[in-house]
């Protein structure tokens, strides 16, 4: 900060202090303005700090933000780009630990974020059930609740990595459509017990009350029965509008799109409904022209978040930091290579290591100023090992759009620039 601004802040503060003294104790209730100024004062030990306030904000020095983006290959950012943005990415390179702040959770919606009055919102459960029922938000909040940490990843995450040429992007731009929150709500099984599932019900249509009326068929497997939740809470408060306020479906480990937001209806049936979102989209085209359908689970994946794409580092000590996750369960191992995959070292996994949740890994490293290629590779509790890009493309080609989970390579160039490459 330059001196002039500092002096001005100090002057403003002194003026305010004088007026405060003059007006008396009642004025102490005012200070948002006073509070902001004092945060930038030269010596925080020599001025009173900010007073309590109703809803906290991060420090004005913290400027990490989501980045908007359009479809594959489109530019990232806001400004002129904003009207074409269909999603926004989490700044993975700036985050600590495993929880994504709600304000930085990635967004993907298909016709904007609806404005919903929770008092008017209803959830209808019908179809192959004994008792079709309507629930209010208050109803759902009354029944026994559960909370769990789980990642959510858009199956379109990392889609730019299918391109033949590696784009010069940051980790946020490449892989930022994944986030972890603590979710709170009702178990789907609790709700289904209340309405009574009829024999033969094997699929469930979930429908959102957004302008896309997004609808997806959910297979009613044992796994879904055990894991699925109808959520109203995210990181201790109500869901953010971008994540489905006031109600969303959560299917831990499944691709983001099927975790239907702004949930208004569940309809049980005996077959998938074949909506646009499970036929024309969110199906994975293979080299032989066939497409995988209902490819729901997000397979194990990891990425080094620091050092990472478009960062600049200096020789000396660095802690290599990253995230690993698997839609099939717990991450059991994260390995790091600094030589493009020729040799691997076991990274430290930060507790808690939870199923279907981001897991933080770390490894100390001393950069000697020579070119290095940093990679991470994770293994999950089923024994599945994250594949190389070469192995992934060998099986799936480059047309599938969705479900890219190959090992990420960052090249540290001799000048300390870190770049996305295919190695």
């Amino acid at each position, binding site marked *: 900060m330059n001196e002039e601004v500092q002096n001005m802040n100090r002057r403003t503060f002194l003026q305010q202090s004088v007026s405060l003294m003059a007006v008396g104790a009642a004025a102490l209730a005012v200070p948002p303005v006073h509070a902001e100024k004092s945060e930038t004062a030269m010596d925080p030990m020599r001025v009173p700090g900010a007073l309590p306030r109703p809803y906290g904000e991060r420090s004005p020095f913290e400027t990490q933000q989501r980045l908007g983006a359009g479809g594959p290959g489109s530019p990232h950012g806001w400004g002129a780009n904003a009207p074409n943005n269909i999603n926004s990415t989490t700044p993975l390179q700036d985050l600590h630990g495993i929880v994504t702040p709600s304000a930085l959770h990635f967004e993907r919606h298909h016709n904007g974020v609806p404005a919903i009055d929770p008092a*008017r919102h209803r959830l209808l459960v019908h179809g192959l059930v004994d*008792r079709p029922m309507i629930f209010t938000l208050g109803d759902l909040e009354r029944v026994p609740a559960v909370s769990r940490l789980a990642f959510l990843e858009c199956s379109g995450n990392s889609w730019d990595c299918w391109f033949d040429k590696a784009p010069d992007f940051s980790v946020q731009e490449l892989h930022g459509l994944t986030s972890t929150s603590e979710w709170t709500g009702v178990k789907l099984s609790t709700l289904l*017990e209340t*309405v009574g599932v009829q024999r033969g019900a094997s699929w469930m249509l979930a*429908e959102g009350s957004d302008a896309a009326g997004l*609808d997806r068929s959910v297979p009613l497997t044992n796994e879904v029965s055990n894991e699925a939740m109808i959520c109203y809470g995210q990181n201790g408060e109500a869901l953010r509008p971008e994540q489905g306020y006031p109600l969303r479906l959560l299917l831990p480990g499944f691709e983001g799109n099927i975790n239907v937001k702004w949930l208004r*209806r569940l309809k049980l049936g005996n077959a998938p409904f074949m909506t646009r979102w499970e*036929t024309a989209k969110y199906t994975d085209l293979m080299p032989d022209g066939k497409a*995988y359908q209902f490819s729901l689970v997000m397979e194990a994946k990891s990425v080094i978040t620091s050092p990472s794409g478009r960062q600049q580092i200096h020789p000396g000590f660095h802690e290599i930091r990253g995230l690993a996750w698997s839609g099939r369960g717990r991450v059991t191992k994260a390995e790091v290579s600094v030589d493009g995959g020729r040799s691997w070292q076991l990274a430290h996994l930060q507790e808690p290591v939870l199923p279907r949740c981001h897991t933080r890994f770390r490894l100390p490293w001393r950069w000697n100023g020579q070119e290095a290629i940093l990679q991470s590779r994770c293994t999950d509790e089923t024994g599945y090992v994250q594949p190389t890009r070469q192995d*992934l493309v060998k099986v799936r080609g480059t047309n599938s759009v969705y479900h890219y989970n190959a090992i990420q390579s960052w090249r540290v160039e001799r000048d300390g620039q870190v770049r996305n490459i295919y190695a």
Partner: protein
Amino acid sequence: MDKYGTSMHKRIIVVIVALAMTLGGVWAGWTAEESGYGVGRPATDDEIRAWNMDVNSTGEGLPPGQGTVKHGAQVFAAKCAMCHGSTGTEGPKDRLVGGQNTLTTTKPIRTIGSYWPYATTLYDYIHRAMPFIAPQSLTPDETYSVIAWLLFQNQIITEDATIDAQTLPKVQMPNRNGFIPDPRPDVR
């Protein structure tokens, strides 16, 4: 008042009837154990009808009404072409027409004609989500007509075909057998 609310009067009748049936031992559902949390209320048939907007792959949910290619051309030009182009191929938004025989090439073009496995999906999606700036604004006849025009443009139906709740589920889509169940883990 909430349009889905039930009057207190009706509620009392429901409770009395349910109690009587429980006491009589003829009511197999709604036991104290199953509704133990005392939340939610029964949905009425009218409510379900109002909310039940999906159309599945057998055509269940398709409303009365019908559409023609000729009418569809007018509706498409007025309400769809600004995003999808005058022939459904120009964009800027999703290309809807053409692309047959491109799925195995390096630049596959996924359209209704080349990729969509079920014609019924068109009704479900267009009715609920299109036009993008005014979802749910098309009448059933307009929706059927736009579908007819799109299927004709993709050379799936003839120009004189009529599309309605009976004919739409019978339309054979070219890529009907183009999908396989998820075989993953597939990369070793």
